[in-house]
């Protein structure tokens, strides 16, 4: 219904994906298809998922993001989740969602830097 509210824009080699503030299940379901078809069509190097307006994160959304990131990785790209709100992070941690193996960034700008720098963020 409001599938259109997910926007996918290609900037240089990166796909900028913006989530609406209160995505329903069908919107979330459409995320995977949109991102993967855009990956195929544009041959992008990575995906930045902007969730800075999202106010709630449930397990379904978290799983979809994790799975999509894995699929994007299989297609040769990396996924960075940008701009999670503090309150969302608190609830996500409380219900045990840690978005394992997913890169995160404070905001879209930093995510763009990270995505184009090609530098491993983890110094360990």
């Amino acid at each position, binding site marked *: 219904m409001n599938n259109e509210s997910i926007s996918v824009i290609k900037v240089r080699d990166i796909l900028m994906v913006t989530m609406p503030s209160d995505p329903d299940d069908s919107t979330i379901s459409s995320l995977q298809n949109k991102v993967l078809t855009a990956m195929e069509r544009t041959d992008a190097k990575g995906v930045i998922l902007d969730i800075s307006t999202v106010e709630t994160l449930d397990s379904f959304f978290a799983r979809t993001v994790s799975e999509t990131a894995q699929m994007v990785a299989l297609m040769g790209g990396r996924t*960075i*989740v*940008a*701009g*999670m*709100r*503090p309150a*969302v*992070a*608190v609830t*996500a*941690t*409380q219900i045990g969602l*840690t*978005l394992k193996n997913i*890169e*995160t*960034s*404070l*905001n879209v700008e*930093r*995510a763009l830097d990270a995505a184009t720098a090609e*530098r491993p*963020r983890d*110094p*360990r």
Partner: protein
Amino acid sequence: MKSKTKSPNGGGEKRLEAVTTPDMLRMLVENVRDYAIILLDPKGNVTSWSPTAERLKGWRAEEIIGQHFSKFYPPEDNVSHKTATELAVAEKEGRFEDEGWRVRKDGTRFWANVVLTALRDKEGKLVGFGKVTRDLSERRAAEEKIRKQSQEIFEMAAVPVVQVWEGILLVPLIGTLDSQRTQHLMERLLQRVTETSSPVALLDITGVPTIDSQTAQHLIETVAAVRLLGADVVLTGVRPTIAQTLVHLGIDLSNVFTRSSLTAGVRMALEILNLKVGPKS
């Protein structure tokens, strides 16, 4: 006043008359500051009013005499018939004291201490009530302010979050970490990380005497939450005893950056930010 209410048939009244004149008493009632002293009939209707009562509550004598004193109470108290209860208690026990919100003529509220005293004639028959109202708004406001300030200081001291460099936050924790404090830590830290767009936060536990498994779990959750925002946490000040405790408790911190000293932590933060500090020349 007390002896008068305690023994309505005793000699109290006489003694009172002997040392003061009714005129002086009236002057006292009309001029005493901060207290509104009025009289009610046995049903609770106002029978006497005073200039101090007018100053405090706003009504003029001709507007309020004959009216029921429930007018001074906020609506929620009148729903529960508070005034009837008060009169009943005052009649039974001689007096009733209360502290709470009262309403002025213009509808504004003030915090008041109210004492209702049953007045009886020589035969012990109830002739009415004396009502002494004291405006405590200022005291309450002062108390509220002090409470708020100490709360703020306490919260600041419990979890101080300072920015030590562009992109680096430092949280020097001192004292035992209970779950309330760690919860507060998580919220404050996440908020500050977002506000300052800091990719690194140093969590220094040099001043934390011991860590139990619950505290460690809270710290791990905090680190996980900060990661979700897109920032990293470096846990510094891991002293030998703390390191031993953590391993003995079987707490897995392999996903968390840890360093023994704050210096090492700062070095690591600079490394994460891809910055280098060197000699000036």
